[in-house]
């Protein structure tokens, strides 16, 4: 699976468009934010049926501790709770949410 996170996306000027590439915004909250070291990132991958689950696996490969939290995390896509097998589209905003503790 040709998944390539773009570490520099936030710091560089806009990159020239690459054909067949999907770019999504990825947000982390709570302990996941501390663990990954950033509240938001951008991921780019080839235009295939990449799912939220695969996106999480991509970050787990980079931050192995993340996988410990897989069972206690829910995901959202464009501010709606989303199933793990949801395929991503260009421009999506995906967030990984630990158990909520407001109130």
């Amino acid at each position, binding site marked *: 699976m040709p998944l390539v996170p773009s570490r520099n996306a936030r710091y560089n000027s806009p990159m020239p468009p690459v054909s067949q590439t999907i770019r999504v915004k990825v*947000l982390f*909250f*709570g*302990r996941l934010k501390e663990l990954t070291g950033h509240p938001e990132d951008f991921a780019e991958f080839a235009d295939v049926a990449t799912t939220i689950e695969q996106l999480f696996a991509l970050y787990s490969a980079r931050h192995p501790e993340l996988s410990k939290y897989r069972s*206690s995390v*829910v*995901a*959202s896509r464009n*501010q*709606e*709770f*989303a*199933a*793990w*097998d*949801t395929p991503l589209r260009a421009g999506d905003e995906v*967030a990984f*949410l*630990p*158990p*909520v*503790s*407001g*109130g």
Partner: protein
Amino acid sequence: MATLPNDDIYQLVREPIDMTALARNVRAPEDGAVVTFDGFVRNQSHNRATLYLDYEAYESMALAKMREIGAQLHEKYRIHRVAMVHRLGRLQIGETSVFIAVSAPHRAAAFDACRFAIDTLKRTVPIWKKEYFADGAVWADGELPPAPGATPRAKPAS
């Protein structure tokens, strides 16, 4: 999503919550009851003395979910107005973190709606608190929101 009455209030704030103003705001001549919920910072957690709490939110989604709860309240209960405000950032012991006020012609609906609102908020609104103690800090045990299951296979276009 159902539209909400213009005079409802749904907010995330970083300043102290003005409970008196919010409770006054939901009152109207045709109402007979206002029920409020004031959630504030406890001085201990699991028998450890708390110093203070830090709240953070996925703000755009949290507001959307709060408004969704409001729409459910109007659908399920005979109520008039809702005010629902959650504070973010650092909160000291005793400070209000969440405040909900519901007005209604009759008290039963206001009580029921207010209870449903805080219970649902605590399960579904993406807000997190970190608890600070003299000897460290932890993210509070939270609740796992009800997430959708696997997506059913899309039917091929006919």
